[in-house]
């Protein structure tokens, strides 16, 4: 009996906890709290936070190769399947209409990717700080946080720096949730009241046929110039074609509902498996959080500055605020642009105008991901 009691005691969590695990469980709980109480990207941060808690339970080894989270990670993230399926669902949910109505605004979505590449440089520069050690692959994986796009960040991190995946995913989704707090000060700093008041003319009508051709054209450009971006861009285009073709509504509906929901649950739990204490609790994580914030801010600023340039060149018909939406973070960043625009001029509805740069930012960061995978991967 004593032996049984001892065995049972030896199998309790209390007898096996490490300090790191306790801290990580508190962090996981914190993510769940932020998701529920503050509305921080709950669709992802509840599964990630909960997965993080499960991954740090001693003895159970749920994130190990034979545990549920480990199996999900191996079969869905290591393989790249989950982020690609999410991207397909995103494609099936995205309306490229606003982008097609005024394609020149796409340049804003290009400019905002400066956040990514600047951060890559910053991450390498951080190696000058003692204790930090980022390889080029690490730096590239961290920099993609500046793409403000969850599945892209997870896909790139899983290929280039799986050990940093947990911190990168948490940073990416947290900063996406923080867009309404991070972006407004930068927007106000870099634009004048006059610029923010700019009203934009209504978007032209986009025909069904243009919407069908666009995903195919996007895929064509990608496969000609940057095939390393083809998995991401390809699945985005595939989902979008399912939607716009209008002849396979049952597949399109499944891709943007049940399938993306199932994959979101699995992806979140699997990402959580990378919140294991020994990987997450390191000085690198602090670097990742800092660099992620830098990436977002620089990306926002680059988009805004390009917006200001377009404001000048277009003779004041482009509101520079929509440049901030170029970072992606769909649709949060477009909403923020709309809100700040309304503050300057209550008749100034920028939402539809900001959606163009916003979805262009998704394409832009998938392209940036392709460059990183091609050169660094």
């Amino acid at each position, binding site marked *: 009996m004593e032996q049984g009691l001892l065995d049972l005691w030896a199998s309790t969590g209390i007898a096996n906890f490490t300090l790191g695990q306790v801290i990580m469980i508190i962090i996981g709980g914190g993510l769940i709290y932020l998701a529920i109480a503050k509305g921080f990207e709950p669709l992802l941060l509840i599964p990630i936070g909960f997965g993080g808690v499960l991954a740090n339970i001693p003895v159970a080894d749920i994130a190990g190769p034979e545990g549920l989270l480990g199996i999900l990670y191996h079969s869905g993230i290591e393989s790249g399947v989950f982020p690609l399926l999410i991207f397909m669902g995103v494609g099936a949910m995205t309306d490229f209409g606003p982008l097609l109505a005024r394609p020149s605004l796409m340049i804003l979505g*290009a400019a905002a990717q400066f956040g990514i*590449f600047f951060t890559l440089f910053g991450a390498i520069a951080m190696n000058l700080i003692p204790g930090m050690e980022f390889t080029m692959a690490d730096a590239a994986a961290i920099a993609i946080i500046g793409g403000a796009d969850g599945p892209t960040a997870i896909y790139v991190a899983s290929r280039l720096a799986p050990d940093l995946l947990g911190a990168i995913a948490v940073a990416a989704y947290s900063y996406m949730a923080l867009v309404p707090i991070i972006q407004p000060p930068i927007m106000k700093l870099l634009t004048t009241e006059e610029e923010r008041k700019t009203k934009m003319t209504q978007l032209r009508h986009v025909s069904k046929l243009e919407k069908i051709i666009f995903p195919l054209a996007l895929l064509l450009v990608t496969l000609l110039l940057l095939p390393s971006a083809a998995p991401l861009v390809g699945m985005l285009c595939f989902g979008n074609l399912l939607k716009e073709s209008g002849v396979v509504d049952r597949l399109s509906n499944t891709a943007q509902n049940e399938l993306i929901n199932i994959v979101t649950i699995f992806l979140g739990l699997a990402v959580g498996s990378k919140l294991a204490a020994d990987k997450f609790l390191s000085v690198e994580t602090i670097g990742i959080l800092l660099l992620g914030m830098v990436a977002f801010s620089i990306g926002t600023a680059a988009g805004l500055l390009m917006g200001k340039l377009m404001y000048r060149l277009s003779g004041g018909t482009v509101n520079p605020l929509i440049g901030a939406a170029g970072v992606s973070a769909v649709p949060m960043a477009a909403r923020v642009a709309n809100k700040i625009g309304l503050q300057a001029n209550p008749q100034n509805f920028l939402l539809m105008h900001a959606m163009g740069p916003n979805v262009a930012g998704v*394409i832009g960061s998938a392209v940036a991901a392709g460059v990183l995978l091609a050169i660094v991967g």
Partner: protein
Amino acid sequence: MNIDQLLLQSLQLLGLGMGSVFIILCLLIIIIQVIAKLVPEVESPTASAPLPTSAPANTQHIAAIQSAIHQYRRNRQTKS
């Protein structure tokens, strides 16, 4: 690889990356504009609905079958 080389390489990546992003997105802008020019010629206001008519073949079939089934069942009930 020492830190200087890494910094240099990351600067190169900055240039190549932003270059690639701008080239690809600018190319897309041009393509979209070309498509927009070509499409209206093809598509008149009424011609914008050619797809729906030929496309949802399967649902049409199913609808046809279901209505046939209903008809058949109604007939049966009336008879029996």
